[in-house]
């Protein structure tokens, strides 16, 4: 075997995947008729009781459901029956809006904290207290003040993505190498040009790392927020399907949430690589 490490890793991944699918398939297999009974009574009891069929859907059920969803992602048959694509789009839009608001707020404040030791100390107690609050704890307050469930979930995304970005920006700005600042000083570079040509590029990798952490947290929180708020979104979809007792749909949604989360993370990872400079 002289395959590259990447190839071998792929082989192992596929093996794990197949093993998991097989185990899943076997575990959810029905055990055949369990008892002889009147067909009418059997109908009332359902397949689980009569045929020994697992209540948990197997991989084939989920696969078929996923295929079904992917063929028709954007149908809209009223408030309780929308395509999974529409639900995901709602969630992504909320995350996008809340996240962009957070970027616009956190990065300038982070700059301020990073550049001014005074502001750093003055704002520190607020950040220390606000940061560990679960974003969902804000939800009632948001609903009460904003009076709009859609905007409230955007606010919750905003409040949970602000902190990692703000803290990372402050750290990145404060850690800009003294010698680069001295270069700017000896060249008599003005404060604005210094901020954009020295501090921003020097701190960009750290800022982007904070943004990457934030998008991950935002995507975690949106599912919970939408379960709470309801109406639209992938979180609502999960909860709605739970109420419908459609475990197949719940598992499908879980899978899609994971895939979208991975994509969002990859986008930020790509951006981070763009601004990272070798030393």
């Amino acid at each position: 075997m002289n395959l590259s490490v990447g190839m071998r890793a792929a082989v192992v991944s596929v093996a794990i995947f197949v093993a998991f699918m097989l185990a899943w398939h076997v575990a959810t297999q029905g055990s055949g008729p369990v008892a002889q009974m009147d067909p009418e009574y059997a109908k009332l009891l359902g397949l689980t009781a009569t045929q020994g069929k697992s209540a948990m859907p197997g991989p084939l059920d989920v696969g078929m459901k996923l295929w079904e969803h992917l063929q028709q992602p954007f149908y809209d048959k009223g408030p309780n029956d929308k395509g999974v694509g529409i639900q995901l789009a709602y969630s992504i839009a909320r995350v996008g809006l809340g996240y962009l608001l957070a970027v616009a707020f956190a990065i300038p404040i982070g700059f301020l904290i990073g550049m001014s030791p005074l502001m750093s100390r003055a704002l520190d107690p607020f950040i220390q207290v606000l940061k560990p609050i679960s974003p969902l704890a804000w939800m009632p307050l948001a609903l009460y003040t904003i009076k709009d469930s859609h905007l409230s979930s955007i606010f919750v995304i905003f409040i949970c993505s602000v902190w990692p970005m703000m803290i990372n920006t402050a750290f990145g700005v404060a850690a800009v190498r003294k010698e680069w600042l001295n270069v700017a000083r000896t060249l008599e570079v003005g404060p604005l040009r210094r901020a954009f040509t020295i501090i921003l590029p020097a701190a960009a990798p750290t800022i982007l790392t904070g943004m990457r952490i934030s998008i991950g947290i935002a995507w975690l929180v949106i599912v919970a927020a939408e379960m709470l708020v309801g109406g639209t979104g992938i979180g609502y979809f999960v909860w709605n399907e739970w109420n419908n007792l459609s475990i197949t749909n719940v598992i499908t949604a879980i899978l899609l949430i994971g895939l979208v989360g991975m994509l969002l993370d990859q986008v930020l990872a790509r951006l981070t690589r763009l601004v990272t400079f070798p030393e």
Partner: protein
Amino acid sequence: MTEKFISIEGITKRFPAPGGGATTVFEDLWLAMRRGEFTCIIGHSGCGKTTVLNVLAGLDVPSEGTVIVDGQAIEGPSIDRAVIFQSHALLPWRSVMGNVVYAVASKWPRWARTDQEEQAQKFIDLVGLTGAEHKRPAELSGGMKQRVGIARALSIEPKIMLMDEPFSALDALTRGTLQDEVRRICMETGQTAFMITHDVDEAIYLADRIVMMSNGPGALFAEIVENPLPKDRKRTDFHKHPLYYGVRNHIIDFLITRSKNFAEEVASRGFDRRQVPVVRPLAPEPVIAADAGRELTSSASRPGLSRPTAAAASPGS
């Protein structure tokens, strides 16, 4: 001193000491430099050489005293005084061209981009980096990075070049070629230069005058050695010059023995900080072979020195 282009006037630097009070790094330093002169400062670590350079650059503020450049007291950094940093301090996210253009654009912000690049190119060529314009600093060797630093400093056509051990991180061969370049450029452009070094040969090769600093705390400019070697000295043979060992021995003797207890040395004879003694080491006098042994054991003399207090300075024999 006929003309004082740069005048260090009584600068003192104190830092608050950990246990209260203050540590005086150096105190009441006076020095004047002429236009177009190359001055090297040499002394042990911790005597405050870098602080003196930072004060000249305007990056540091002295606790007392002032520095006057071209008739004006220094108030902060100025683009007229270029600094070549020990750690080259290139901006790693910019290319070689980008780094030099950044300096050019700081000096002449209104120039067209093409003019700025042309000016930068001129100095990239001057330091021999033609063809590497689009490389990032990470792709360059240590010597090449320092060349970019030199090109960046020169491209803004400064009145003064300040260099903080610019070659100390380089290997001997690269250091040699860069010394040649810096010397050539300074000679051609009549640049006023101030450089910190630990390397005695580097000081003798480059400097017109070598300022020797005693050990800190409370360091002071102890002596100024006028370089007696001819102006057109070459790196390949300057160490064969008859006066070379006189200068070298004098400096090394200072660094090894005299710098430690310079304060005691001068306590007996008085020391005018404003008139730092100027020494011009001469050729060693021929010594008759028969007397040589007696000569060497009698005292740790420094043959050929015109310094009147040479005897007083000798370490207790």
